[in-house]
């Protein structure tokens, strides 16, 4: 599903974010990418979204070689990937329903599909009753649930979560992780970037550890094909 082959990324100031990273994530896997701040975790997420181009190496996502897809094809490629951020990135002037529906409007989904799917996905994340609330009327955990609903509503094959529990208290962090696990059980490949080692250890999933831009351990490395 996701393959990085000897990928390096050096920023303009000649700062190496990641160096010679190779990894393979299979369809339906739940993977943690862990490491300290500045270790290069978020750079990997940006590379997977084709927000950044690698300086060296090859990235294949969902069968597509990112080095070979044109600028015009990028939006269609991104429609197969859902993204969740630490700071939720919701539109403050729109309610819960509109925030989720926005993701479908952007991909020009039919009105009927929007009306059917948005309540469904809100129910999945446990926010069906709060569809009229504005983001600022919700707790941090609820806001993150809205962000997850938005990421899921277009039925992506992959869900990338960049520090999804970074702004949440322990209880909310656990609820979000349980939700992501549930989503993974439904068949979506989930990649979570985090530095919350307590949760990572408790979840008992594959863990890729990055240190100073280099993969230092992959606890399921032996299973790679």
């Amino acid at each position: 599903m996701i393959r990085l082959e000897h990928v390096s990324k050096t920023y303009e100031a000649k700062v190496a974010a990641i160096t010679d990273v190779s990894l393979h994530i299979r369809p339906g896997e739940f993977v943690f990418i862990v490491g300290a701040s500045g270790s290069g975790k978020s750079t990997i997420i940006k590379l997977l979204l084709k927000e950044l181009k690698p300086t060296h190496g090859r990235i294949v996502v969902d069968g597509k070689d990112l080095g070979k897809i044109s600028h015009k094809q990028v939006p269609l490629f991104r429609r197969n990937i859902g993204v969740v951020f630490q700071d939720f990135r919701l539109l403050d002037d729109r309610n819960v329903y509109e925030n989720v529906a926005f993701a479908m409007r952007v991909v020009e989904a039919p009105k009927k599909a929007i009306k059917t799917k948005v309540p469904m996905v809100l129910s999945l994340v446990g926010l069906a009753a709060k569809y009229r609330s504005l983001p600022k009327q919700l707790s941090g955990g609820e806001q993150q649930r809205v962000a997850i609903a938005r990421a899921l509503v277009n039925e992506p094959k992959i869900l990338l979560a960049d520090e999804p529990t970074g702004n949440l208290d322990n209880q909310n962090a656990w609820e979000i992780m349980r939700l992501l696990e549930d989503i993974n059980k439904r068949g979506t490949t989930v990649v979570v970037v985090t530095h919350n080692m307590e949760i990572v250890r408790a979840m008992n999933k594959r863990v890729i550890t990055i240190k100073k831009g280099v993969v230092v351990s992959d606890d399921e490395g032996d299973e790679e094909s």
Partner: protein
Amino acid sequence: MKPRTVIYNIRQGFKNIWTNKMFSIASMATMAACIFLFGVFYSLGVNFRSMVREAETGVAVTVFFDENLPQENIDQIGQQIATRPEVDSYRFVSADEAWADFQKEYFADSPDAAEGFANDNPLANSANYEIYLKDVSQQDSLVAFLEALPGVREVHRSETTAKTLSDFNNLITFVSTIIVAILIGVSVFLISNTVTVGISVRKEEIAIMKLIGAKDNFVRAPFIVEGVMIGFIGSVIPLLIIYFLYHRLIVYVTQRFSALSSMMTFVPVSVVFKVLLPVSLVLGVGIGYVGSRLTLKRHLNV
């Protein structure tokens, strides 16, 4: 783009205008000033050109022939005049006709005084061609041609009238072009600023749109709508004002200054608007479109 997406983006465009009310109003006002001045100069120009055209029909070049030039040669000169592209019309005035015209003009009050010349036409050598031009600015080239013709003794030209009319026409065109060009520049700049503010206000939304797979045109469309609508509204308002004022002005001038109105005829508002309306709308919408496209290219890396 699907129809519902077009509607959605148009709504977003209007929302942008509303969100940046002050910038939008400033852009519309500048655009309105630009189109208003364009309209004023255009209306002046149309009326002036109509007056010039009227005056030009009265501006003639007169060609006199060598003494005792045979009629055959005079006819040949006439044929050569007929081939010139500058010539609108021409007529031959014989010596007798010239004398008759002279008498009408100068001896109308004392016909007895002219009797003394009954058998001796004092304008015997004044047979001529009166040539009327299509455009007074072409007078020089025609005069040069006529003076070089064999058998031509003298060419009279209406130097001052022709030059003044032509120069004034050029001046109006020049001044209006400069002013309108400056205002177009200012309008593009202001629309660009408005769109830039819109982009910065919606920065987060644009970033999210791009991450969840919005196509470039979907991201750009609301800003294009914003620019085009500013241009459209900014051109409709001055057109309405000009229509109203022009109509009022004609009525006022013709009623108040009846002497002036007998000297000049105003071009009807419907004739002026036949060109002014489409040109102004295309200009306004075009400036709005160009202004927003330039800004998107610079600030929106989609």
